[in-house]
């Protein structure tokens, strides 16, 4: 039973955060391609701005990976109690939902940053920093999930 909860948690962490990043990067990539069709020399800068909303998916994946290891899904050895399983499920929500929403929001910021950079390349660093302002909320969600996942084996329920 515990294992099932854990696996659902793993899916939530990966998929929700992944959707956030996919939407964010997708929107940014569309904007970037519009700019590149006019001036292909901006590829490097556009790539950087496009990739910025991509981190949420990574954070989700990392939490999921630590859960795979921590709950022994890969080894198939450890037993996970149903309380622990629910705890893993709960831990996944933070990075999943946090990543989903912040990924989309960061994507919007990236689109705006790209059009700003297209007007004047000198705006690049300002755009970059402004886009990373969103990132902190994904990071906080990630760290909460991370610390929870790491501590679950030591918690007595």
């Amino acid at each position, binding site marked *: 039973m515990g294992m099932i909860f854990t696996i659902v948690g793993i899916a939530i962490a990966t998929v929700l955060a992944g959707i956030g990043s996919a939407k964010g990067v997708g929107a940014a990539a569309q904007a970037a391609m519009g700019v590149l069709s006019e001036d292909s020399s901006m590829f490097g800068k556009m790539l950087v701005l496009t990739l910025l909303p991509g981190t949420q998916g990574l954070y989700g994946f990392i939490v999921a990976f630590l859960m795979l290891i921590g709950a022994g899904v890969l080894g198939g050895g450890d037993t996970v109690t149903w309380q622990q399983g629910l705890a893993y499920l709960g831990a996944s929500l933070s990075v999943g939902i946090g990543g989903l929403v912040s990924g989309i929001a960061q994507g919007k910021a990236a689109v705006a940053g790209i059009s700003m950079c297209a007007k004047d390349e000198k705006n690049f*660093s300002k755009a970059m920093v402004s886009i990373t302002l969103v990132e902190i909320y994904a990071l906080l969600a990630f760290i909460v999930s991370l610390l929870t996942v*790491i501590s679950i084996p030591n918690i007595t329920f």
Partner: protein
Amino acid sequence: MKAVRIIALKQDRKRLLEHLQDSALVHVKHTEVQDGFQRTDTSSQLRQFEKNAELMEKSLKILGNIAPEKKGFLSGFKGRREIDSDEIGKIALQSGRMIGICGKISKLDAQITDNTAEQARIRTLLAQLEPWKKLDIPLNTSDTASMAVLIGTLPKEYDDTSLAEVLAEKDPELVFETEVIYSSSNLTSVVVYTPKQQKDRAELLLRGIGFSRPLNPTSKTPLDKAKRLTQKSADLKEKNEELKNEIAKYAEYRDSIRDTQDYFELRAEKYRVIAELDQSEHIFVLNGYIPEEDCGKLETICQKIPSCVLEFEEADENAPVKLKNNKFAEPAESIVTMYSPPSHDDIDPTPVLAFFFYFFFGMMFSDAGYGLLLVIATAIGIKVFKPDKKMYNNLKLFQYCGISTIFWGLIFGSVFGDAPVVFYKLFTGNEITMKQLMPWMLDTQKDALFIMIMSIAFGLVHVLVGMGCKFYVCLKQKKYAEAFFDTGLWMMLLVGFAILAAGMAIGQILVYIGAGIAIACAVGLVLTQGREKKGIFGKLIGGVASLYDITSYVSDLLSYSRLLALGLTTGVMAQVFNMLSTLMGTSVIGILFMIVIFIAGHAITIGLNALGSYVHTMRLQYVEMFSKFYEGGGRPFEPFSLKSKNFKIKNTDD
């Protein structure tokens, strides 16, 4: 920075300006023309040079599209080609010829564009002819002696019977014959024959159901016409190929065109400066700025010209800023200028920024293997490409970051993730842990909480250093109240909290000391922060409200938890790819699979995490530290120089 006035006889103008341009020492100042002097209007020459340079640029672009250059992937790192100053003369000589060639290239390109437009027009015509292809008489067939011929389209689907029905219903007396040529759901092409005396009647009736004559009627049958158009289009295509080949023949001149473009840019730059000169009948005056350490060099140059006189004085507030740092900090200058060059009141933040930039980058990238790759790759880049100053500094920046990355990789026990452990186990079957290999290491996963506290502690140091800079700047400007009350008290308050936090872990006594300092500082803040307000209540309320700023400090410090998060991301991603690479075991196929996955996987990890580390390090500098003291908004020092993209002139003096 010094202000300099250079005065010389007019006859030496050309020589002096050439020397100044080659040496790139002086930033030309824009001034109003002084009494008794005149300015030369160079705008028409300038326009000519700029026009020529643009023509070269355009031709290079056309050449690039039609005959792409085979460029190495890394050629962007390459420094400019060095040439002798005699070679400039040769370039000048051939510039006329290059203008001719570029003129031809752009003329040929214009023809290609025209032809392509014509092809598009033909495609539209062909599409219009499509419904008429089966018609065996010309579209403009006129009436015979007794018969009227009406050719046109109807906006609905009909066949011969349904059309006849519709017409007969509307006008039973009309005599007609229809021939439907083409029919689709919203278009029917039809020929209607009717006796000549009924022509008007038939036409009126047909118009009633939407009949219209074809566009562009011709005297050939539609099929013939379509054939001719197709042929013409094919001819145009062939013609375009020929034109392209002709342009491609000029590809061999590409380098010469580039040189010529640079040459015109240089001349344009010179004429821009000439327009800034105050000239009288015999002499001219150039006003500019020069870094203090270069004054001597300028003097040596000017000694070569006997008539030249130099006057130095202290620079005013509008002087441009040239950053000057030691070898360790210099590569980070680009990070500062990307934000904004320091203003007159700022201190140069580069040394502080450089240290923390390397430090934090390393902590986020945190892998000894990746760091080593970074160091080696940048070293090779510097050695092989001999890049220009700017690119050299960028490579150096990443080299220092690489060294820091190796350091942190060793601390976090990460060499290509856990590669040593994974491969040891794969090939020997024995278990071993990174901790056994590196007993000193901190495990990012198991010690995450400790590393997070450490990250925030580093953040505190970073923020305090930023505030320290503010303190220093205020003292320098003799704003003592701002220095001690606005900055000093906050710094002490943060230190107090830090001691308090440390005390919770270490001992009760520190808690009391920390709390004492914090409370004292808070009281101090309440008493001083409202000092601009009027009335005792205004002052008090202002003071209490200022304590609310603590939230911004807390969020600043929390922001440093990204040091842990990104460090962990690198480690875990590397670990994932290591695990994947060993999935197929140690058979021959397994090893091949391993090599491919290992290289591809780590390449992905390096790409994503190097980008992340770079971006987030930069953010920590700009948002968390610069906000504490740095104003920016200065003008960069841009000396009158050879702003060429392609070549640079060898310095013959040293």
